[in-house]
């Protein structure tokens, strides 16, 4: 009897020791712009990410821990943030940065260190081109530019366009070029292309030049800071043309700062609650609205998807080792994201774009355009 007790005691002890201790957390690096001109995008993206984490806090039996480092909307800081996350925090993967310029800065860092990087929102094709470890869960600008051009020609019935390019941002330069190419190819004419810099507050010279050419529409794929000011000054100068933008126009501040000047401004982007196609998307909108009392934007939805796509790849790879993880990410197919059903081709997502416009001080859904 005593022997039985002793043996069963030993057995229980062995079993207890065989149970794993609290699993080591899996660290993910999040170099988002929390301050600086891109702060609204970064803060919204973090909201989406946190929502994703709350819905799915574990992967491979380990709790997920995110390390947020502010990249201050700056290229140098983005690169530093990536470095710090890899060297100091020893993250398994990085979700971010958001803007194309910052993703182009952080990409080589992750590539050299062989740490997978998934950008939720960067659309310039160069971000993933030629890279093995850099991915994105959104579409790329050749597609977005041509959607904009088609919309301008077919829906806005524009034959001539003026383009305003922020020469300091890779995103703006890229998408303006793709728009121009597509617009010309589909029979339109670009009458003038003017330039400005990030941080500029006065656009009177450029707008005066555009006014002289009298185009049908003005293509302004600007970030909201400049976009709002451009819209205001354009209206003040008597320019009545419709303004067409890109996905960087989707920030609540565009309307708050632009006021009545941005009424009618249309833009191509990734996500809107009215254009939701998947059940995951519907529940995401519900959860976001419940927690933040406002409609989710593209940045939050894409960050949500980036998180889940990454974890899904980890599940399929059954490990967090970079080589296997990269292979699993490359094989992402028909992933049910909140922004749509996603397949990664050459590290980029092939997805439809939605077109929104500003009406009565709100972003209103207009259409969805699928890639052909």
């Amino acid at each position, binding site marked *: 009897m005593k022997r039985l007790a002793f043996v069963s005691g030993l057995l229980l002890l062995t079993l207890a020791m065989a149970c794993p201790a609290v699993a080591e957390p899996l660290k993910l690096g999040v170099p988002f712009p929390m*301050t600086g001109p891109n*702060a609204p995008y970064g*803060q919204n993206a973090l909201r989406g990410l946190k929502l994703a984490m709350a819905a799915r806090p574990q992967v491979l039996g380990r709790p997920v821990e995110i390390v947020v480092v502010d990249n201050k909307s700056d290229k140098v800081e983005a690169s530093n943030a990536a470095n710090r996350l890899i060297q100091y925090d020893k993250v398994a993967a990085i979700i971010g940065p958001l803007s194309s310029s910052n993703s182009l800065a952080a990409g080589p860092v992750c590539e050299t260190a062989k740490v997978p990087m998934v950008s939720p929102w960067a659309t310039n094709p160069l971000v993933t081109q030629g890279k093995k470890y850099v991915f994105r869960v959104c579409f790329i600008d050749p597609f977005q530019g041509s959607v904009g051009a088609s919309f301008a020609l077919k829906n806005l019935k524009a034959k001539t366009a003026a383009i305003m390019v922020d020469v300091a941002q890779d995103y703006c330069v890229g998408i303006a070029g793709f728009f121009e190419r597509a617009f010309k190819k589909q029979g339109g004419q670009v009458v003038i292309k003017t*330039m400005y*810099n990030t941080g500029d507050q006065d656009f009177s*010279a450029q707008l005066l030049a555009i006014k002289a050419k009298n185009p049908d529409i003005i293509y302004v794929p600007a970030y909201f*800071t400049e976009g709002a*000011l451009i819209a205001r000054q354009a209206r003040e100068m008597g320019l009545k043309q419709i303004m067409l933008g890109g996905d960087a126009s989707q920030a609540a*501040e565009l309307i708050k*700062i632009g006021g009545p000047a941005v009424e009618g401004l249309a833009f191509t982007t990734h996500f809107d609650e009215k254009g939701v196609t998947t059940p995951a998307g519907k529940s995401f909108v519900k959860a976001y609205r419940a927690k933040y009392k406002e409609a989710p934007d593209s940045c939050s939805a894409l960050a949500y998807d980036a998180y889940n796509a990454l974890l899904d790849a980890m599940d399929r790879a059954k490990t967090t080792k970079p080589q296997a993880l990269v292979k699993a990410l490359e094989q992402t197919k028909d992933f049910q994201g909140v922004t749509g059903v996603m397949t990664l081709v050459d590290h980029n997502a092939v997805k439809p774009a939605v077109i929104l416009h500003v009406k009565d001080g709100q972003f209103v859904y207009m259409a969805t355009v699928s890639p052909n």
Partner: protein
Amino acid sequence: MDSAQALQQLINGLTLGSLYALIAIGYTMVYGILRLINFAHGDVLMVGCYFAWFGAVQFGLPWWVALMGSMVLTALLGVLIDQGAYRPLRKAPRISALITAIGVSFFLENLGLVIFGGRPKAFQRPEIFNQLYQWGELRVLSLSVWVPIITAVILAGLMFFIYRTRQGMAMRALSRDLVTVHLMGIDTNRVVALTFALGSALAAAGGIFWAMKYPQINPLMGVLPGLKAFVAAVLGGIGNVFGAVLGGLLLGLCEIMLVAFLPDLAGYRDALAFVLLIGFLIFRPTGIMGEELPE
């Protein structure tokens, strides 16, 4: 470019120049008395904007009440900065005070980031400034017409104060010789505090009109206008109030002229300010109105 456009750009230039002038006066007055370049001045104007924003948005005050209130509060802030950061270093080498100024600048910026967050806030433009005047081809925002007028009124008041009152005389005396004035029985600390108060109040006014012209505020908004106003102060002869005004107008007009006549170089408008600074420092370091004072 026809005459209507040229006139429009001229008015733009005057407006921008007036804004730089208002901010530059603060730099120049402080330098004149303390030989200190108050790098925190640009961030003081940022705080002034936020005070006005709070007044207008949170408390629903009419714009001119918010403006006045902000000027008073910012003046107090200026005095606080002087008492807390610069006064203890009056006897220290000048470089210590300079480094402290930079420190105060960073402090204010990051305090703003913590309190107000990184997202910019919309600044309401009062209706009186939002009118569009149209004369033929010319379209001018009423703000562009009012700002130079209001600036001229403020400056007239300031000139009266500096040249016709005892306090003003004390300020002018202090800029000549700080130690001797102290020996004459004048409370130098009080006069210095007054200088900071005046300079900061003017910066608040400049900042608020800047925010009305480019209607968004964020904690880092004061950096570039502050730097350019500093350049304006140097151009006009740092230490000379009239020079600051002249420098501000000159810089504003040059910037707009560059953008108007060479639109391809519009991206370099900020660089122009610094090119002018370098040029003046090489060829005429005392500025337009500066005088060589014997050490």
